[in-house]
């Protein structure tokens, strides 16, 4: 049983709640179709003479293909066409080439070497699904089995077999420089040295299947106008269309993709494998072709949420403040990149989680192993590391003897804090979520924790970018020559230094191209950030009334704390403890920022450093942006 309450009392100054249609529990537009079974999923389009495609797949983790004998299969009843690698016009791709990220490395159909169990080496089109399966069983592939590697850290060793020849170091190449993505903010070694506790942990997430109830699939058919229509379960219509155009070396104008009603995706329908294969089938057979994964393929050949391994090292002050946090992360990409490389960048920007920590470093590796390639899934790039971070936070709480919720509130990021990716936090609400969850569950937290606010105590010195130690460890290929440590900073010979305050220009949304597209601000329902803290009515929070002795279990206003992050004298610091806890949100007699009533969204530049007032103007310095992005030709 579930219950839902909408806490309209919180952040009410920042919203209008009088909109006409927004906020209404309107029935889904598609619900009638769902309950009558008539929502048109891709497989609900009937074609006369529909043919069925199935794949011949590798039984080996890693093997060289000596030969493929399709003779018997071609003579089997109902078989229309056997498709091999040579039939794919442009048989090399990487999914994110459409946004110029990564090198082409994966064949639609393999002909030289298989790198995971299930990799396709042939596709067969037949009159019925069963005939296609029977013909697949009759294809004889002569393999030379090669040594394989399945553990990502073993794959980093100089002795490990090369999984993917385009990345011969078994790691994705980041920025043409390193075999991993770095994040550096401050000096973690200094933070560890100042810490009272060092808390370390290792975390592992195994691969997870998206498991939509509709399996991945597509039906392609010749259209009367010399084009091909493709009904697809894709989550990304133009990704699939663009990938198909590229692999088939076909003008995108000859492709007509139709989808939009999909039986669950969860990230598993982005990879654009079934679309190019079904269109290729329709081209070669001249008839409608369906390629639908069965459940076994969906589970073992379809790319899962990849495995991740994380090591976290924290330096923690006696009072629970985390002074430094270092991550070493391994994304097990499987045999090809798909989306793992990109997830790591998203993940790196997410570190160290929703906390303000003055010294943060991370090395995150995208490692190739001989397993099914990994791809997107709900929470992509974040779910695994959030598991690690939040398990680790409990270990930190135990180490310092703090209530786990209070520990989070103590370290929580707040409006105006600088994050390690060097952009300011705004619109934060972690503290309020902690307080409400504590309240709903009846988990006591201290009165001071219950008084904290995301709107207060951030910024000031917490907005500053510290002097940052960098290193050049882990350059591409270095790890192939000798074993070097994977953790940030360890074993690094050449160290560098980025001066305090160094920051580039934040990127904001492109402005509307025409002023007619700019919505009247009074109709957006958005009133701008409030300067008055939203208040969880304190009486409603089960506050811990136990005597709080020597241990500083309750969080001081972060900026007022002594320590490397918090030089004193910030004019931003309010005195939350002085505010009447039960008073409604209202103008307070506090020095700064000026307490105001709800404002129109016209904040001053100082408190809103990167409000998108002006159209983006900085050039993109990466050459050859995708035609789907800017109209220029892809590299």
């Amino acid at each position: 049983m579930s219950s839902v309450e909408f806490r309209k009392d919180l952040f009410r100054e920042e919203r209008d709640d009088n909109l006409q249609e927004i906020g209404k529990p309107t029935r889904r537009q598609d619900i009638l179709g769902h309950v009558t079974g008539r929502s048109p999923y891709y497989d609900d389009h009937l074609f006369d003479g529909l043919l069925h495609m199935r794949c011949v797949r590798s039984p080996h983790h890693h093997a060289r293909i000596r030969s493929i004998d399709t003779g018997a299969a071609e003579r089997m009843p109902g078989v229309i066409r056997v498709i091999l690698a040579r039939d794919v016009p442009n048989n090399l791709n990487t999914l994110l080439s459409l946004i110029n990220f990564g090198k082409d490395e994966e064949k639609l159909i393999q002909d030289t070497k298989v790198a995971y169990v299930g990799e396709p080496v042939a596709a067969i089109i037949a009159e019925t699904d069963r005939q296609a399966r029977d013909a697949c069983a009759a294809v004889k592939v002569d393999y030379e089995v090669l040594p394989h590697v399945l553990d990502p850290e073993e794959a980093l060793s100089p002795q490990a077999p090369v999984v993917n020849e385009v990345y011969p170091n078994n790691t994705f190449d980041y920025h043409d420089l390193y075999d991993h993505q770095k994040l550096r903010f401050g000096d973690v070694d200094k933070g560890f040295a100042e810490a009272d506790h060092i808390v370390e942990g290792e975390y592992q997430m195994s691969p997870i299947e998206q498991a939509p109830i509709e399996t991945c699939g597509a039906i392609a058919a010749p259209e009367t106008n010399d084009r091909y229509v493709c009904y697809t379960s894709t989550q990304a219509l133009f990704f699939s269309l663009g990938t198909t155009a590229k692999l088939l070396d076909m003008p995108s104008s000859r492709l007509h993709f139709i989808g939009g009603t999909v039986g669950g995706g969860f990230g598993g329908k982005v990879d654009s494998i079934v679309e190019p294969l079904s269109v290729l089938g329709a081209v070669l057979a001249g008839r409608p072709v369906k390629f639908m994964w069965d459940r076994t393929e969906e589970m073992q050949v379809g790319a899962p949420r990849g495995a991740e391994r994380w090591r976290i090292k924290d330096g923690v002050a006696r009072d629970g403040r985390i002074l430094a946090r270092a991550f070493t992360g391994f994304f097990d990409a499987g045999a090809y990149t798909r989306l793992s490389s990109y997830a790591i960048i998203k993940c790196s920007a997410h570190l160290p989680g929703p906390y303000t920590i003055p010294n943060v470093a991370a090395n995150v590796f995208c490692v190739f192993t001989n397993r099914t390639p990994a791809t997107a899934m709900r929470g992509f790039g974040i779910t695994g590391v959030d598991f690690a971070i939040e398990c680790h936070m409990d270990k930190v709480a135990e180490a310092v003897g703090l209530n786990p919720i209070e520990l989070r509130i103590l370290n929580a990021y707040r409006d105006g804090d600088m994050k390690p990716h060097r952009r300011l936090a705004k619109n934060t609400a972690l503290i309020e979520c902690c307080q409400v969850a504590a309240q709903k569950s009846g988990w006591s937290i201290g009165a001071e924790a219950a008084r904290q606010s995301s709107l207060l105590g951030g910024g000031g010195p917490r907005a500053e970018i510290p002097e940052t130690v960098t290193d050049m460890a882990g350059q591409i290929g270095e790890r192939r020559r000798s074993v070097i440590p994977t953790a940030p900073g360890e074993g690094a010979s050449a160290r560098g230094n980025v001066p305090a305050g160094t920051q580039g220009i934040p990127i904001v949304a492109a402005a509307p191209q025409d002023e007619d597209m700019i919505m009247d601000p009074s109709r957006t329902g958005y009133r701008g950030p409030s300067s008055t803290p939203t208040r969880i009515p304190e009486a409603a929070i089960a506050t811990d009334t136990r005597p709080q002795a020597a241990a500083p279990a309750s969080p001081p206003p972060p900026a007022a704390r002594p320590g490397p992050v918090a030089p004193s004298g910030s004019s931003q610091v309010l005195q939350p403890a002085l505010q009447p806890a039960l008073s409604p949100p209202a103008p307070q007699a506090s020095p700064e920022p000026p307490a105001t009533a709800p404002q129109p969204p016209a904040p001053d530049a100082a408190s809103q450093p990167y409000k998108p007032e002006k159209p983006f103007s900085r050039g993109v310095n990466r050459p050859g942006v995708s035609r789907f992005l800017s109209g220029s030709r892809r590299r």
Partner: protein
Amino acid sequence: MTVHKGRGFACINYPIGMNLGGDPSQALVHSTPDGKFMVSLSSIDLGQGMKSVTRQIAAETLGVPVADVYVDTADSDTGPHCMGSFASRGTHRVGNAVIRAATEARKALLEAAAEELEVNAADLETDGQGNIHVKGAPTRTITVADTAIAAQFKQGRTLSGRGIFLIPPSDVDPDTGEMTPVSCFAHAALVVDLEVDDETGEVTVNEINSAYEVGRALNPRLVEQQLIGGAWMGVSHALYETTEPYYPDRNHGPEDFNAYLMPGPGEVVDHNIAVLERPAEDAPFGGKGPGEMCANPVLPAIANAVYNAVGVRCDTLPITPERVLRGLLANGGARPQGVR
């Protein structure tokens, strides 16, 4: 047999939209002859409610009843480009594109009405019921339907709009990781209550109390769908799911739903949700997109609750009975960590 109760906490934030930007979405809006509106997209409804939420956004922006708006997606011949439905980008990116397209269409609508009413367009307002009034003079009014007919059959004016939303791509500094990843974050915190059987290692989740901050609940029932279903998936990830039960060994990978484990309808967890709404500046009506983040806090909260119940740190997912039992044996039995 001893069953130990445990309680665990976790909180998270979640970046909304494709990292680094560079992920545009477009929308087209046009009026039918009598003033109903069609929204054309290439976005995908995977069940998250893309068609429904963009419909409400279009209706709100146009100032017309939701019943007068329908969303058509995704046909590459008629729908403008959309990067796709992933990374919690739909509500934010597509929603913003729809706002721009519907805003332009609304401008044309009001200009057409102004011509009919012989007033300035700036003096007009919509009532959300299908009428356009002169501000402060509600009797000077025209229906949206009459306006559309006049515009398209008398004035020679289309009531249509185009919209694109793009956050241009951000570079990443190779040495520091500096970048502009996304523009807004959703938040969540939750408490899990569960029981652990110390002879079998079996974990039973009894209750979740949660707070999810979603910017704005554009449709509260769609938000509820995501949060309840997402928390279920979180429990499933935490305790059940993997395609490789003996990772990194690849043996015994499940090939059907008997072997790929997920909680059944007999394991529905009582889930009490509070929804917080702190609107984000550049999000459509402040809404951030709750679809992905809702599962994330459940995984660590369960691990933390198992530790609280029996003193076994479960740092490897999924937290199978075997992993709990091995931990119990290694510890010489359950070590409850105290009532929370």
